[in-house]
């Protein structure tokens, strides 16, 4: 059969966003500014700011239902300087796909001036790890679509009064999993390994990374890398949440760092099939840094206040497994049979 002019495999080039080497090199312009109503100490709001700053002005940002929709975008007081559109809870993947498809078609047909435009679609853990997983998976299969799915994970449905999600840690107290007289642990599921699941399940996806906003430069550079490398990409951010995790708002960064230092939240990137640990996680993996006990992390948060020794031991054993038994420590489970 004859090849036609419609090349479905054609790639549109991306913007080239070089990494920022140090805080002084970071652009001064902000694209997520005042106007939002997030809680004091909200790490996710900071993540939005870093994400938008890293992407720059020639971007379209789409946001699934969740805190970063409801608390961020009140009619007539939007904090978004770049174009922004709401999408449904399970539609982060679809929103990105549809936006890129429209840009591609219209540019190819001469209905819009051709230029590389960043398309970022964000979702929370409820929208990403639970309801929207299939649409994100589908988006990551469109290897000729330049898009970034950014999942801000505050480990609960935090906008609707804190309910457990598939991304909540084992045992966490939430309004759907309150410790009671008969059942101390109501949430018995272990947190989904979302970033690695998506990386492993979509080997043609060129870039997947995990971040925390405490490492601001790293977080922005991962966004810039994802947008530059092209194709569909995914970033998973762990966002300490004062309201949902129950701690003083001033400790948000500290808890994010502790999550990494205890080995609970490994920082890594998977670029073109190669896993690379970074930050403290790199030193944990090499043995240069000894993981802190998970107790130091758990006991700082009210959501684990009902834990007894047995629960902490179980949590520690599960984290030990990640680093001692997994095929790729901290990333890919299974052991060789």
């Amino acid at each position: 059969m004859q090849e036609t002019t419609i090349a479905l495999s054609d790639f549109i080039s991306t913007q080239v966003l070089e990494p920022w080497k140090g805080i002084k090199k970071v652009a001064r312009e902000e694209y997520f500014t005042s106007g939002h109503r997030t809680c004091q100490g909200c790490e996710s709001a900071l993540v939005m700011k870093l994400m938008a700053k890293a992407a720059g002005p020639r971007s379209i940002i789409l946001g699934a239902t969740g805190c970063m929709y409801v608390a961020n975008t009140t009619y007539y007081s939007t904090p978004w300087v770049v174009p922004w559109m709401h999408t449904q809870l399970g539609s982060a993947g679809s929103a990105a796909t549809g936006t890129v498809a429209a840009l591609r078609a219209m540019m190819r047909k001469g209905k819009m001036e051709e230029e590389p435009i960043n398309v970022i679609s964000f979702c929370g853990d409820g929208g990403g790890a639970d309801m929207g997983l299939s649409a994100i998976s589908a988006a990551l299969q469109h290897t000729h679509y330049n898009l970034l799915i950014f999942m801000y994970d505050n480990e609960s449905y935090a906008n609707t009064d804190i309910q457990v999600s598939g991304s909540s840690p084992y045992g966490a107290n939430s309004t759907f999993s309150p410790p009671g007289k008969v059942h101390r642990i109501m949430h018995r599921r272990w947190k989904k390994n979302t970033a690695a699941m998506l990386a492993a399940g979509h080997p043609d996806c060129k870039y997947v990374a995990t971040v925390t906003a405490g490492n601001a430069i790293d977080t922005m550079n991962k966004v810039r890398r994802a947008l530059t490398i092209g194709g569909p990409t995914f970033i998973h951010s762990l966002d300490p949440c004062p309201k949902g995790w129950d701690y003083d708002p001033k400790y948000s960064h500290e808890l994010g760092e502790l999550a990494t230092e205890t080995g609970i939240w490994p920082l890594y990137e998977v670029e073109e099939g190669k896993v690379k640990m970074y930050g403290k996680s790199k030193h944990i993996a090499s043995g240069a840094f000894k993981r802190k006990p998970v107790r130091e992390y758990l006991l700082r948060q009210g959501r684990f206040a009902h834990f007894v020794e047995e629960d902490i031991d179980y949590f520690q054993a599960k984290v030990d497994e990640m680093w001692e038994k997994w095929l790729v420590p901290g990333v890919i489970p299974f052991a060789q049979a």
Partner: protein
Amino acid sequence: MTPPKTATAKKVDIATARAPRAGSEELISGSEAVAHAVRLADVDVITAYPIRPYDTVMQYVSQLIANGEFDCEYIVAESEHSQFEIVKHASAVGARVFCGSSGVGWLYAFEALAVTAGLRLPMVAMVGNRALDDPGAFGVEHNDALAVRDLGWMLAWVATAQEALDTALIAYRVAEDKRVFLPCAISCDGAFLTHSQSIVNVPTQDMVNSFLPPYDRAEKQLHPDNPITIAPQANEDWVMEIRRQSDMAARRARDVIIEAYDDFNAQFGRGGEPFIERYMMEDAEVALVGMGTLAMPVKVAVRKMRERGKKVGFVRVRWFRPFPTIELQDALSGVQAVGVIDRDYSFGASFFGGVLANELRCALYPMANRPAIVSFIAGLGGREVSTDNVIDITSKVLDAANGGDIDDQDTHWIGVRE
């Protein structure tokens, strides 16, 4: 497409060649006719997901793309919800879009359907009408498309493959008109229309281009040059005003549809009356009312009843949203009794009637001399509505017109085993 024979082409007088500019005659199904409309409308983004019977349209669309006859971004989604969300977002960026579904697939996308209308995005969709599960049935029922009747979707029902093609072109023009900016679904009865072939005039690209202007999202386009925020949280401060804007758009749609049919009739030499089709209504004493491919057995039955000296007519509702209240009042003002045939159900509704029957009853209520309305449910799950069924229905309506003992406070199920 067959090019015109040289001998014929030579005879064409240049003075008369401009209008009407003939397209080509094709033997195609309703689904293929819609695929041609989508190609001619130069749609930019299409998403597909399989469910019978609508999926045939995407089989034709994908062939057109594979053969290089049509250029668009064509995405096979992983669910109907994603299918409709993807084109919703493409439409916000300014792309012309097409999508479709059937039965429970349409309902799987329900959330996306609601927000598409709420966002005033002019998506055009095809519904291959199908019974909702359970129990499973591939056949036609109208409950799928009717489920969105309150949300701001414009809803058209077509009876032939030609009408499917024409209505799709009209739908883009109406939906994308700035006075409207509402999505439009074209309902094609599963199997009876989606899979049945008939001769269709497929217009030329030039003809379509002169009828259908490009989609221009203008100041509402999502683009870095126009950094707007779309669909924030409005809450009780603004939601009622925004709903009112949708209400006004739905009201304005009426005139825009009339304009579109006027132009379509002038340019294509066909298209008919907007909103309803009147069949043998001039002197009718009783009328039947229905939607979709029911028209075929009903028209045959009307002619048979006429042969018996009964003055029977038929009104086919072509647009359910906006509902043709004025046209139906006009068409039915002279009849003594109306029989409404619903290919749908609304369990527990007033008089146990279907959706169309109760909507029509509501529309005719203010009339000084309103006719008696007898409500029927027929052809569910794709069951054939035969000419004999329609004759049975007509006899009951004539009975009502003549003051007989037919119960017009009940709804009569036709062709059902009790």
